[in-house]
């Protein structure tokens, strides 16, 4: 838009390729960072944003391409080198030592010394004070980091970046854990840093932040840089289209829901850790999709429903009966099972065998007196699931961690399905799963539906939601921010609801409130003035 002289280029990435064990994550990515500019890096989950930033900051080596810093080609082999080149990265999961004070963290490894070689505490805390003042933080630099709020910890990280006199500051989802006020302060700090001529990179899912805080936006999609240009040249719809712009192929087999399924699950005003009042119902033979951003409260909802966390208010009815599970064991006994997102930590015992993992939940049904396991029955059940789910194993005594991601996920699903539950909550069931196994998991979901079970499908992959779910609820900030029927759901509408952008929502109706849903509200939120998906992928870089 502006044609007058661009600020000088601080850093440039050219043709960066990066793969992990044969899977290409970044393909020929170009990125230019200018002094005195705030750059947004946008893209869906898994588009390669974090990988790109880790390359910028020396954490990962890249396979091909060049990195230019102040017109010189550089090769970073360690994060230390990037740090010495005045590049600072503030990771989503903060990198502070909880037991040390704010001041100690800011100057960790670079503590000022006295003539005697001991730490000059006076100077350390005086310098820390100055940095914190610049960030409008009144916290005492002698306070242990573990006693600070997440927002304050974030500010300590930024203070550390400032103490390094970083010229390029990368922030990965900095506002995710911040309160509104903290976010405002952060925005002011970012504006100041920009005015000082520093270059900032913000990775964020929140569209309003991209438009309010950033000068330029770079969009990654499936490992390719789709677009880089001034924010002013785009509007929200345009940006969303750039981000999602993927064709919905016939990869998603869909079978219509049985229309008159009875209500199996009724949730009313549910409150639990991370869940701030959610109501919905799900029917027999229905796949109910849950969209939203990471950390929006979908996993928290699932954990509350299956008894893993405590419900603080509201009611849950299963088959019309009020229930309140004190543990996942009780939920399982009532026919509700949760397949967690994090299969390595929560889904499977990786060093244990395929058979032992698979039969874990269903074990009581193979046991006789004194809990004696009838090994024959167990083995037969395991065999039949291996066969029907086409799990590729050499034998069922093989440890699960020797399987591919897709097969691991199938084992995790088999474990959940073996006790024949009525209601299945699937949390990101295809994360880290290859295309072939994905399709098999989709077919399995349809099969569950055909059997009259109820499936709650949590997914951050929008095509998956659109392709499989009969209805889609969007969760943002622990509340339902949109409801869509299969017919009127679009990627743009879901993204809009997920980002907590209320302009489109409130223009139609009061649906943004979210706690009580009506079909009228859902219709009003469904189709913003947007073009069909087909044109989305045809956005070229404006160069």
């Amino acid at each position: 838009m502006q044609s007058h002289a661009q600020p000088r280029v601080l850093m440039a990435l050219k043709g960066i390729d990066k793969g992990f064990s044969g899977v290409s994550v970044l393909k020929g990515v170009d990125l230019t960072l200018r002094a005195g500019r705030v750059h947004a890096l946008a893209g869906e989950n898994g588009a390669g944003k974090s990988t790109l930033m880790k390359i910028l900051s020396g954490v990962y080596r890249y396979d091909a391409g060049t990195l230019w810093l102040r017109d010189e080609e550089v090769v970073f082999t360690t994060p230390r080198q990037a740090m010495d080149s005045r590049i600072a990265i503030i990771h989503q999961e903060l990198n502070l030592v909880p037991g040390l004070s704010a001041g100690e963290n800011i100057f960790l490894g670079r503590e000022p010394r006295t003539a005697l070689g001991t730490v000059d505490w006076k100077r350390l805390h005086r310098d820390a004070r100055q940095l914190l003042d610049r960030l409008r933080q009144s916290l005492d630099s002698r306070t242990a980091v573990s006693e600070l709020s997440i927002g304050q910890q974030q500010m300590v990280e930024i203070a550390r970046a400032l103490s390094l006199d970083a010229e390029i500051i990368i922030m990965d989802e900095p506002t995710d854990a911040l309160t509104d006020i903290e976010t405002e302060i952060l925005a002011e700090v970012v504006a100041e840093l920009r005015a000082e001529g520093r270059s900032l990179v913000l990775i964020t899912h929140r569209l309003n932040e991209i438009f309010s805080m950033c000068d330029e936006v770079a969009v990654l999609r499936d490992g390719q840089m789709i677009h880089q240009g001034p924010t002013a040249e785009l509007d929200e719809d345009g940006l969303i289209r750039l981000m999602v712009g993927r064709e919905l192929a016939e990869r998603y087999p869909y079978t219509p829901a049985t229309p008159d399924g009875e209500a199996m699950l009724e949730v009313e005003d549910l409150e639990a850790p991370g869940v701030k009042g959610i109501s919905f119902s799900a029917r027999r033979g229905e796949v109910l999709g849950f969209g939203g951003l990471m950390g929006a409260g979908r996993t928290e909802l699932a954990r509350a429903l299956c008894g893993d966390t405590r419900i603080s208010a509201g009611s849950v009815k299963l088959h019309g009966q009020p229930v309140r599970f004190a543990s996942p064991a009780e939920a399982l006994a009532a026919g509700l099972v949760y397949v967690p997102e994090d299969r390595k930590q929560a889904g499977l015992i990786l060093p244990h065998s395929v058979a032992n993992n698979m039969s874990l939940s269903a074990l009581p049904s193979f046991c006789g007196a004194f809990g004696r396991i009838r090994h024959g029955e167990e083995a037969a059940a395991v065999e039949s699931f291996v066969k029907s789910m086409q799990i590729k194993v050499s034998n069922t005594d093989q440890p699960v961690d020797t399987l591919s991601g897709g097969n691991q996920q199938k084992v995790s699903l088999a474990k959940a399905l073996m006790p024949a539950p009525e209601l299945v909550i699937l949390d990101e069931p295809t994360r880290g799963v290859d295309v072939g196994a994905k399709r098999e998991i989709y077919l399995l979901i349809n099969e569950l539906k055909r059997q009259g079970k109820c499936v709650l499908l949590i997914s951050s992959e929008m095509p998956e939601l659109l392709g499989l779910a009969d209805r889609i609820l969007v969760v943002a900030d622990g509340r339902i921010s949109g409801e869509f029927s299969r017919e009127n759901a679009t990627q743009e509408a879901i993204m809009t609801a997920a980002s907590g952008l209320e302009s489109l929502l409130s223009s139609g109706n009061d649906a943004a409130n979210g706690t009580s849903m009506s079909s009228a509200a859902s219709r009003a939120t469904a189709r913003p003035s947007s073009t069909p998906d087909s044109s989305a992928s045809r956005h070229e870089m404006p160069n």
Partner: protein
Amino acid sequence: MSTPSSSAASGRRLDVMRLLVDNKALIALALLIAVSAGLSDNFLSSDNLLNVLRQTSINAIIAMGVTFVILTAGIDLSVGAVLALTGAFAASMTAAGLSPWLSVPGTIIAGAGLGAISGLFVAFGRIQAFIVTLVAMTVLRGATLVYTDGRPVSIGVSEAADSFWNLGGGYWLGVPIPIYMMFFVYVLCWGVLHHTRFGRHVYAVGGGEKVARLSGINVNRIKISVYAIAGAFAALAGAILAARLGSAQPNAGTGYELDAIAAVVIGGTSLMGGRGRIFGTLIGALVIGVLNNALNIMGVSSYYQMIAKGAVILLAVLIDSRAQK
């Protein structure tokens, strides 16, 4: 077509390595026995072998209980103290004329109860097992001194005392009773760990507590149970020890918890939980027993024996950690 065959060969080599590592305790035991037999004619005499087994039985029984705890990624430092207190219970019950058919089960139940208390704090208090059982060790040592007034508790002289004495000092078919006890406990543990739901759950809790919980396992119940089991076996060992000596010593079992943990670790059970076998623990206890016996026969002082034991434990753990890579 050379690639598949060479990878198969390397696979086979790996299998052999695996087999060696998995059975390192057994190999170590065989080596120890061979070396001891070579160095001393006495070692292989049936008297000496039975002696080794009897000496090992106390540690083996305790260690098998501790195996359950360690499989859940916990630890129990209190078993030695439980042994002392319950041994005193057994002795005083016997002195009061109670038949061993009542006093021994009573002792075991008392031990299970003491263990369960630790388990409650680990499960519901969410305190680290190390701390809980360290506290239990201290408290129970104190309780033993209070209960015994710091003096040995004699089992007395009676018909009940005679039959109680058999538990530790008696023979059946020429084999000491404690050896039968050890094998009975082994078979029991093997059955429970490998052929029951409870055993599977113990492994699951140690392998991944979060996974176990989400899979519908009552993790707290499992945790309390394993500490109860460790307490129960420690109590059985306490009764055997008191029976053999004819009295319960207030400071009996000092340091036994460490021998038990050593046996478990030599047996290949991971302190991280979820991995290990009860057979390994039995062999681990035998390795320690044979080592002590061989060094004794060779006239090595007990000071050096401690150093040797430490070296064996270190070696076992080292092999395990190398094999993990």
